């Protein structure tokens, strides 16, 4: 029998008190696309970082082609034919493609012949895989999709036989995902082995032939992809059965309550990021904003929630002008008028991570009764309220005195959601509600948003997850380069159609 190209036995790894990997066993066969699926924090990336030599396991062994190897640094892994494309690209932005690829493998002290040779070799590789990359382009000028290709090219140039990709599709449009999958399939044809780390079930079903599931640092199952289903994998990931579809009632659309007229907004560097945007949301409706990260969604949400100045145009709430270029209501005044905001960047804007959970739960209401009286906090009331609301929102662990940063992403998001939904807002602005949130919590958060809609709130949902936009929204607008480039009722819209709009080509 042929030994697997990569075999891990009893891998253990802890960071301080947290055991990220517990007794992991894994076999990966040559020439396959092997998926590793699990929720955020399940230990997938840690495990692959160990294989790549970036982290050192506390115990366990790694074999390549049946031979035990000791990986002390990424250099050892690279020499043994392992390449990794990280979730956050490991590229120097102001270097050229060529410089990034040869970094560490220059082969000569002073640039000269070898540099020319490297260039020729790379051009050949580009042709073989149809990469279409300009080697002299600066990374910062390249789109995310191209940067990812540079990463793949880098690994191939360094002689990778096993290519590990960590959440490769998170930042791509559906078309770019198609391109990537095409590349991965052709690499497989060439006999390369691919390890795909993801939390997206659809990718596993689409691309892999074998799949391993991780949960809370442990490997909970291996199976052939054809023998399993999305539902089964989701259950293995979460440890209980999960509803993958959102149940949504027919829309009961009310009158228009939130209106944006010809809005333009600049960012901190004085670049116009929102360009002449018009939109309208009715009560009982969820309006989804689709778009690739960085196309103005962030600045739009910030302007609407009163934390960024409006350059031109105006915003109306219940027919009353709340913001234009001369004056705007601050978030507190907006809150009093019934507008709530769940910010995109949970850690930076949604919470004070070093505060205890109960402090974050009442933040913004802390000076109101019953939480305080005559400027003195009423800890008894606060604790009582916190206990109640944490139970209601299923925040785990249910301990109001725990520092907020110790909660998982999903539970932090529930803390914010409970605070923002507390006063039954009429308008709810939500940015990336499930970024870095586990499936179980996603289900809960989605259900809450639908409940708010059914109660008659007008909801604006910005998300880079197309699935989320498609499953929650009643109406979808697409942002590209600060402008709204398309608007669709969410009936029979496909992610392909939206993808074209998101890429700015339709």
């Amino acid at each position, binding site marked *: 029998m042929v030994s697997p190209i990569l075999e891990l036995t009893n891998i253990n790894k802890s*960071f301080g008190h947290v055991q990220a990997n517990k007794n992991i066993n894994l076999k990966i066969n040559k020439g396959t696309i092997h998926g590793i699926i699990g929720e955020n924090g399940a230990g997938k990336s840690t495990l692959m970082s160990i294989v790549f030599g970036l982290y050192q396991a506390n115990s366990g062994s790694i074999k390549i082609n049946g031979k035990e190897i000791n990986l002390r*640094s*990424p250099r050892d892994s690279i020499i043994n034919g392992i390449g990794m494309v990280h979730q956050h690209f490991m*590229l120097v932005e102001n*270097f050229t493609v060529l410089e*990034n690829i040869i*970094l560490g493998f220059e082969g000569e002290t002073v640039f000269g012949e070898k540099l020319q040779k490297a260039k020729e070799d790379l051009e050949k590789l580009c042709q073989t895989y149809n990469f279409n990359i300009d080697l002299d382009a600066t990374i910062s000028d390249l789109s995310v999709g191209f940067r990812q290709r540079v990463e793949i090219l880098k690994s191939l140039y360094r002689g990778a036989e096993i290519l590990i990709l960590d959440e490769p599709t998170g930042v791509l449009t559906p078309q770019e995902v198609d391109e990537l999958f095409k590349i991965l399939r052709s690499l497989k044809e060439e006999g390369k082995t691919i390890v795909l780390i993801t939390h997206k079930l659809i990718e596993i079903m689409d691309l892999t032939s074998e799949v391993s599931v991780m949960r809370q640092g442990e490997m909970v199952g291996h199976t052939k992809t054809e023998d399993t289903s999305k539902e089964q994998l989701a259950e293995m990931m979460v440890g209980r059965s999960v509803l993958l579809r959102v149940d949504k009632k027919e829309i009961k659309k009310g009158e228009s309550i939130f209106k944006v007229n010809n809005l333009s907004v600049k960012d901190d560097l004085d670049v116009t990021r929102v360009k002449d945007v018009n939109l309208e949301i009715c009560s009982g409706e969820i309006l989804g904003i689709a778009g690739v990260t960085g196309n103005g969604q962030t600045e739009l949400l910030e302007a609407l929630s009163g934390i960024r100045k409006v350059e031109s145009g105006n915003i109306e709430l219940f027919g009353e002008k709340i913001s234009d270029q001369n004056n705007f209501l601050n978030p507190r005044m907006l809150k009093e008028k019934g507008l709530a905001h769940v910010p995109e960047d949970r850690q930076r804007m949604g919470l004070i991570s070093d505060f205890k959970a109960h402090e974050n739960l009442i933040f913004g209401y802390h000076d109101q009764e019953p939480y305080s009286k005559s400027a003195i906090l009423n800890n008894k009331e606060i604790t009582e309220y916190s206990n109640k609301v944490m139970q209601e929102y299923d925040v785990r662990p249910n301990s109001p005195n725990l520092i907020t940063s110790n909660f998982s992403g999903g539970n932090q998001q529930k803390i914010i959601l409970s605070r923002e939904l507390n006063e039954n807002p009429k308008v709810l602005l939500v940015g990336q509600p499930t970024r870095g949130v586990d499936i179980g919590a996603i289900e809960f958060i989605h259900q809450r948003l639908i409940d708010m809609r059914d109660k008659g709130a007008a909801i604006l949902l910005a998300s880079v997850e197309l699935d989320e936009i498609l499953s929650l929204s009643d109406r979808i607008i697409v942002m590209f380069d600060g402008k709204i480039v398309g608007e669709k009722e969410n009936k029979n819209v496909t992610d392909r159609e939206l993808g074209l709009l998101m890429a700015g080509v339709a």
Partner: protein
Amino acid sequence: MEFLSDIASLINSTLRISTPLVFAAMAGIFAERSGVIDFSLEGKMLMAAFVAAVGSYYLGNPWLGLLLAIIVCVCLSMLHGFASVTHKGDQVVSCVAINILIIGLTTALAAAWFGQAGLTPTLNEDQRFLEIHLPFSDALRDIPVIGTLYSDILSGHYVFVYLAYLSVPLVFWIVFKTSFGLRLRAVGENPSAVDTAGINVFTMRYKALAINGVLIAFAGAHLSTAVNANFFREMSAGRGYLALAAMIFGKWHPKTALIACLLFGFTDALQIRLQGVELPAIGEIPVQLIQALPYILTVVLLAGFVGKAIAPNAIGQPYIKER
């Protein structure tokens, strides 16, 4: 002819005054391109001046004094690295600590060894560097323009002046034309990219700091064993900070940093020249104002230009590999 010789002497002193700034700026480029802030150029320059002066006094040879200064400065750079690279301490705090330590240490050691607080004995001609007169400089002096250029501007400098200006193309070559330079720049921009390329981030930063130590030693030795013949208290007089400003103004690039150093050197040379001179229409400018010129210029330049200067992306951040 009076006017021409004025200009020549102004350029001559600009070159001399800029010398320690150039060494320090090049030293700064190595540290900061690798992602390590170096405020301690000032302290290291002062220490180098002290060690070079004491070394050549006891050993009787200024080159040995320089060698000692290099060793001590490299050690100080390693100390900075130990605190801020290995132990991930705050880089600015580590630099400030070094600067304060050295102001006190040099004064105290001078008092203990020579009985005078912050002063070392005057070096004789064998113990210090002397001006180098280039061949034929006397013979060629009378040829118009070329003679002035060669004999009055290029000739008659200390060895450090020549070394400083030779170091600039060398630094440029190392930083932009060698694989070491590529790694150096990468480690200051995105250390994770360097780590995943199989290069040790810490080793790279230590190497950069070692070169930094060597270069800054030249600046100090120039002060105490060339232009002066002894060490005196706080003789670096803010040149380390000025060089840092020049490096930032020069966008961490050897060529533009050199221009900034020359500009600072020129205003300093000009202020010396302008003291007590009656200017037409304006009259005599107060000495205090003239002396403040280089510093005013620093503030103006930094306020006006630093906004556009983009620092290495990872500067000031200790590299933390595991979460």
